């Protein structure tokens, strides 16, 4: 168990800086998830914690020790890769025991540990198989088994589930969640998957272009995104953004409007001046069709509907051409081409300065 502290961490490949000064504090036992668009540096950051990439500048501390120059093997970490990376020339048992074998652990103790890991991951019956005889999910279990037998202080996961199919991904996601509760270890987890991030994380780190955009609990990021990027990145379907004009400024709130939106009073996230253009963010889930079409706040035409069972996703085109996506209750039925009027609670919107 250990804290991990990243202090102004930087990484360049040649002349290209890909990690541009990252500060993150990870508490002992915390489950931290890195999310961000492809190429933003999630894997690089994780590999720097693992010691697989050199640190160009800044300091990395694990358990209070600066480990910038420490070899991966001496960092007390374990890592699970997207491609599983289990050794094809060893049986499952040998794979799981790998870290213990090279540490020279006596056989009896080693066997006990391997069995314990196999029990936790429910793969006792697979121990004598070869990797080529395993399914993707089973392989990933082996990789996780290889990580847990070492009792690492920090677990690192780089998109461990992205090669699995949807059903298996959900199972394994729950297993990893359970594992975290059982082992109470510090875990750092990289993913593309919103659901994984929201369900597993104690703390999510949103990265963009090698920089931290926001750090917070899943609900923090969802309800109080600090900037336009985080607002658009967290949540599915993504938040709608309307181009609005600031009409007036009051004490802590502003009035905004646009041609398809009747003036509303909202609390801005960024400071905005009257007359300025701004972005008003509304989550699709917070839009509801108004019973009286003349009373709604947004007026448009239905372009597309997708019925997902639990909800119906509706694309609405406003008069000025902007599109708005609404996630409506499952039994709402709409005709394509029909006029709708949507309403929402201004308190649940986010106002950002226009970029």
């Amino acid at each position, binding site marked *: 168990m250990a804290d991990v502290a990243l202090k102004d961490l930087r990484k360049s490949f040649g002349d290209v800086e890909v990690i541009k000064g990252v500060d993150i504090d990870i508490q002992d036992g915390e489950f931290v998830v890195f999310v961000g668009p492809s190429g933003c540096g999630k894997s690089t950051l994780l590999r720097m914690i693992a010691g697989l990439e050199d640190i160009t500048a800044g300091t990395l501390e694990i358990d209070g020790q600066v480990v910038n120059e420490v070899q*991966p093997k001496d960092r007390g970490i374990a890592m699970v890769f997207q491609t599983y*990376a289990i050794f*094809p020339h060893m049986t499952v048992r040998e794979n799981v025991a790998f870290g213990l074998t090279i540490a020279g652990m006596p056989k009896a103790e080693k066997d006990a540990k391997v069995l314990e890991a196999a029990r936790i991951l429910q793969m006792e019956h697979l121990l004598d198989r070869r990797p080529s005889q395993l399914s993707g999910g089973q392989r990933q279990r082996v*990789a996780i088994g290889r990580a847990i037998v070492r009792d690492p202080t920090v677990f690192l996961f780089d998109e461990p589930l992205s090669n699995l199919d949807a059903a298996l991904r959900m199972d394994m996601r729950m297993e990893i969640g359970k594992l975290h509760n059982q082992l109470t270890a510090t875990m750092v987890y990289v993913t593309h998957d919103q659901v994984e991030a929201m369900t597993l994380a104690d703390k999510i780190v949103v990265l963009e272009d090698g920089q931290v955009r926001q750090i917070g609990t899943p609900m923090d990021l969802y309800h109080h995104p600090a900037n336009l990027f985080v607002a658009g990145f967290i949540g599915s379907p993504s938040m709608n953004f309307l181009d609005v004009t600031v009409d007036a400024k009051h004490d802590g709130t502003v009035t905004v409007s646009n041609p398809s939106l009747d003036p509303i009073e909202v609390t801005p996230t960024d400071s905005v001046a009257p007359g300025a253009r701004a972005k008003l963010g509304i989550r699709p889930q917070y839009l509801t069709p108004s019973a009286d079409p003349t009373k709604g706040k947004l007026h448009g035409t239905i372009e597309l509907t997708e019925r997902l069972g639990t909800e119906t996703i509706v694309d609405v085109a406003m008069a000025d051409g902007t599109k708005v996506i609404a996630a409506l209750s499952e039994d709402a039925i709409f005709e394509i081409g029909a006029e709708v009027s949507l309403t929402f609670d201004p308190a649940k919107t986010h106002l950002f300065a226009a970029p």
Partner: protein
Amino acid sequence: MAVIDPANHGLRLATRYTVLILIAAIFVLPLLFMVMSSLKPTEQLLNDTSSLRAFLPVGDISLQNYYDAFDRAPIGLFVFNSLLVTVVTVSLSLLLCSLAAFSFTFLKWRGKGLILSITLATLIIPFETIAIPLLLLVSKLPWIGLEGFRIGWLNSYHVQIVPWIADALTIFLFVQYFKDLPEELVEAARVAGASWWQVYLRVVMPLSGPVIATGAILKSLKMYNEQYLWPLIVVQQESYRPIMVGLGYFFQLQVAWGEVMAYLSLITVPVLVFYLMLQRAFIASIASTGVKG
């Protein structure tokens, strides 16, 4: 999908086999000629070369050439010397070259690219151009062996071994192979606590069966079959002489072709045995690595 016409299919098979048989013949006939000739007196052997009889055990067939060859040269000693030099050189070469390639592939150090380029550039230098400088060098090098300390490496086994251990071709083979190993396997081993030595011994080498077999075959054939010039100039004593230098025993005044063929047949046996052995290992190692995603 086109429908396979059975007649066409038969024709294709026949063509394929004809080509294969022709290619096989190109490789087998010289061996056959060698073995058949070794059983014939020199005079008949020379006459037979003008006809297909050269490949057949006809006429005056006996093992006389073999008896004579053994009388003329210490064949057992030569074969032993060659085998010893080959086994030791190949083993050390595989070890050293794979370590060098490991460093070139997986470790990070300053000047790596340049040194690898220089190493590979040595591939184009023919041995003949460095033979004399190398001779001058080894004749002055010190050595501590079983007989104690001495200056100069001439007339020994090690003079036939050490200069051949490091070789760019073997390094190149390993580098190419290592580059294609999934990098995550190495990284997974490192984060699981392995030192670089352990990565080499427990992950990289066990997965390198095919390249080890290839390297071993190429290097062994070179060391056993082609070591002529170097031992000729560094070894004067009969007791360290390898097989190819030994061939010279049969080319004095009058060439005893029958004995030459007997000698060649004898020294080919270890090569065939070795090749058949490694061929199986080669196929097995390919089958067992099967790295699947």
